[in-house]
């Protein structure tokens, strides 16, 4: 239906709305670009359209082993993850464990510390040649052969499972909080003790949600690059993501772009189908769950003394495995020219030489990382805010477009998206020299995190009563103006949180920069990767320690700001 303006002019009647719509179109373009470039690159050969690239990929000797490995890593990760995350979420949400804030801090740190740092920490401990633990084993047991080799599939999925337990924890806690504690109390009143009630009532009630979380993280587990890249590639054990990397960055030959694109497209399609299956099963599960949905005042289970010790023992062990031990190992390794078993004499040799060595690199890395830390969240949050608004408040085709684009884009694995932007950069490079610059990395990252920020901001906007915008409209305030002056101030908190989260993600990201960095656009992550691959362990460790400190600093600032904000509100 057309709208008749009171006074026609060249300016749009609602200039802000026009700008928002342009931004949304830009955002959709950003999400679509990598997919389109992949499709194009994979389907074109020397003489036009071809499917031969797909054939080349599937005939590659590493293809089927990589697929098998990917599946093993996926399932293994999820099993390990459930082993840790279910007890953690249960302890947090349904017991009276003291100092739960400390627990929260541990888990937040676990989320924040980059995966490749953890992987590197474990390389220092369990690598077969000079891993600290293996050296100890040889000293004590006296055998050459040691039982632990970090370069194996088992370690990949074990460490991934440990790492993913932390974000999964945040997804799982609301489920446990939503289950009415009177169900357990009713059981207790009927003579069933509370531990049994937890096992036979709470767990089955939560199981659809646990299954949903497991499916969700399966999709994530099969696309993570860090662990397989650090622990699989050196021994030529590939998963899909690392095989893709090998196609592009094969040390020996030329990059095999078309094959990379085909593999990437296959991964994206597989992830998309899995995501659809996930959504379908979540919708199904919803009907069975007897959750109140609301967070109720719960009467927590009183832990006995030994119960508390057990709980804290579990949490502590988890933290040590996930962050504590590998970080300590990085610190240890950063001060020694070659890896040594901890001992008094080794400690006396501990020095800052590696830090001094890497110091000349730091300014450039800092510069690049800071650019990303400012640009990525700013673009990401701006686009996400506009997209979330149009997505929640409009009934137009634009909204349908957003829904579909986001759904497809969410499923595109990081490394595949990065590859898409690599192609995009290469193809436009003759017009806009963006290939190999920090800006291409920034755009690729922003596009990747955009869907995440979009979800967070959409959640906040859904909480806003639509009537507060309609009240603006009927009192003469244009849509665009009410977006800026009414909607945005009311979701400011979620915008701020998203901004910081994106800043943090950009600092810990390895996958995207490793695909797109060139000389001069190195960031901490790629520099550490490079040093480690070249076997310069002490400098790799020193840089890692610096990066970990930066990240922890950011987490603390984030925490201070967000709690201060809460107090003010």
């Amino acid at each position: 239906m057309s709208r008749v303006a009171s006074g026609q002019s060249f300016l749009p009647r609602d200039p802000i709305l026009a700008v928002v719509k342009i931004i949304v179109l830009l955002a959709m373009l950003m999400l679509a670009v990598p997919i389109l470039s992949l499709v194009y690159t994979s389907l074109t050969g020397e003489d036009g359209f071809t499917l031969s690239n797909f054939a080349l990929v599937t005939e590659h000797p590493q293809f089927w082993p990589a697929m098998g490995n990917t599946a093993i890593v996926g399932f293994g990760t999820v099993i390990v993850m459930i082993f840790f995350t279910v007890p953690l979420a249960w302890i947090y949400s349904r017991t009276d464990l003291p100092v739960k804030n400390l627990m929260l801090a541990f888990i937040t740190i676990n989320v924040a510390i980059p995966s490749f740092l953890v992987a590197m920490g474990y390389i220092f401990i369990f690598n077969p040649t000079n891993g600290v633990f293996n050296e100890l084993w040889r000293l004590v047991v006296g055998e050459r052969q040691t039982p632990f080799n970090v370069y194996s599939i088992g370690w990949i999925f074990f460490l991934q499972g440990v790492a993913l337990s932390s974000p999964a924890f945040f997804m799982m806690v609301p489920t446990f909080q939503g289950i009415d504690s009177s169900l357990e109390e009713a059981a207790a009143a009927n003579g069933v003790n509370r531990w049994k009630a937890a096992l036979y009532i709470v767990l089955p009630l939560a199981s659809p949600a646990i299954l949903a979380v497991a499916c969700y993280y399966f999709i994530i587990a099969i696309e993570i690059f860090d662990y397989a890249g650090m622990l699989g590639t050196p021994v030529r054990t590939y998963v899909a993501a690392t095989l893709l990397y090998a196609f592009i960055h094969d040390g020996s030959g030329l990059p095999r772009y078309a094959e990379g694109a085909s593999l990437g497209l296959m991964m994206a399609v597989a992830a998309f189908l899995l995501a659809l299956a996930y959504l379908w099963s979540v919708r199904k599960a919803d009907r069975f769950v007897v959750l109140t949905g609301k967070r109720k005042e719960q009467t927590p289970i009183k832990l006995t003394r030994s119960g508390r010790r057990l709980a804290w023992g579990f949490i502590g062990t988890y933290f040590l495995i996930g962050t504590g031990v590998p970080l300590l190992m990085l610190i240890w390794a950063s001060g020694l020219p070659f890896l040594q078993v901890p001992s008094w004499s080794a400690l006396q040799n501990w020095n800052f030489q590696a830090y001094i060595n890497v110091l000349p690199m730091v300014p450039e890395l800092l510069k690049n990382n800071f650019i990303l830390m400012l640009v990525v969240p700013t673009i990401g949050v701006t686009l996400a805010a506009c997209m979330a608004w149009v997505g929640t408040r409009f009934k137009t085709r634009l909204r349908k477009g957003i829904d579909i684009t986001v759904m497809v884009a969410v499923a595109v694995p990081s490394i595949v998206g990065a590859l898409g932007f690599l192609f995009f950069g290469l193809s436009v490079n003759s017009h806009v020299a963006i290939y190999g610059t920090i800006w291409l990395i920034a755009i690729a990252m922003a596009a990747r995190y955009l869907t995440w920020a979009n979800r967070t901001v959409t959640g906040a906007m859904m909480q806003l009563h639509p009537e507060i915008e309609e009240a603006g409209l009927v009192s003469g305030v244009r849509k665009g103006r009410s977006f800026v002056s009414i909607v945005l101030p009311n979701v400011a908190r979620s915008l701020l949180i998203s901004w910081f989260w994106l800043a943090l993600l950009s600092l810990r990201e390895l996958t995207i920069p490793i695909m797109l960095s060139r000389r001069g656009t190195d960031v901490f992550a790629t520099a550490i990767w490079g040093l480690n691959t070249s076997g310069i362990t002490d400098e790799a460790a020193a840089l890692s320690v610096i990066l970990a400190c930066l990240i922890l600093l950011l987490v603390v600032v984030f925490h201070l700001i967000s709690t201060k904000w809460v107090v003010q509100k």
Partner: protein
Amino acid sequence: MIVAKSLNKRFITDKGQVVDALRDVSFNVDAGEFYVLLGPSGSGKTTTLRAVAGIETADTGYFSIAGQTVFSSDEDLNIPPEERPVAMVFQSYALWPHMDVYNNIVFPLRKGVRRVAPEEIKRRVDAVVETLELTPYINRPISQLSGGQQQRVALARALALEPAVLLMDEPLSNLDAKLRTQLRVEIKNLTRKLGITTLYVTHDQVEAMVMGDRIAVMQNGEIAEEGSPADLYKHPVNEFVARFLGEMNFIPGALSKNGNGTHVVSTPLGNVPFANVPDRIVNDRVKLGFRPEDIQIGEQPDAAIFTAQIANRYYIGDAVLCDMKIGEHAFSARLPNTTDFNPGDEAIVSAKLTDFSIFPGGNAGI
């Protein structure tokens, strides 16, 4: 002031169900009139109001406000809400939580399409703040106001726009009973004093009758009947309306024509004459309706007089409610609180002939 013609609106829910929220809704609101849309939940009141405001777009139909066509499906015309000369008070108040009282009132005047000069803003804000007694709260954040105060702010924000038409969607439904009774009189007096045309939505029939100059009763997306409160209450044409406005007793009857062209309905209560009968009455089986308070003890002139059995008696303070029977027909009566009937008694009671309303009869009599 508002002309609405043949509005239709169909919603398709997420599950694919079709809801006809408005079916051929037409009404006129005169300048300065207080017009109430009354109806049960889901009858389409809010949808009508939102369509007037322009927040919802009707599928077909025509609207004009203050002589200006704001919507016409034939002409493919739809003026957006911000350009319509209306203001609206929402059920949720829809105050802007991040602004204080003052800014809630001033924001549309400063940043809206209908913005005015600073001196004019000041004049209007001073006026509404004084009228609605908001001076003590003017710089308070919205979250620190009580429900009634928020209500006033929402009203102030709307009035400050000096709209041609004020739209209100159940503005009192979130308040406690006492405040509600007090505010409905205040709002009515205020709109009368300002002479502002008001379209008011409620599902509370007392509120509708206290406030409305005219009431339209909605049912399933249609206007079932329209009229002044007294007409609608006393002589409803539509049985649903009759029941919705208050309790009504129904007695079956047989309609016959007199020689002189008038009609008479013979009922268990006696014969009730009707000078003329609406066209809707197509056969001789009819129902007569009367309200519990129409029953009086004893005889009176020009009335149906009959003997009823007392089945139950309830003392409710300001009155006595009696369940009565005549033959197998039950009805209830609202009598003075001095009435001392006992169950089992027989009593002679009467109801004025003019108090009866006539409705088409059902198959089973009632």
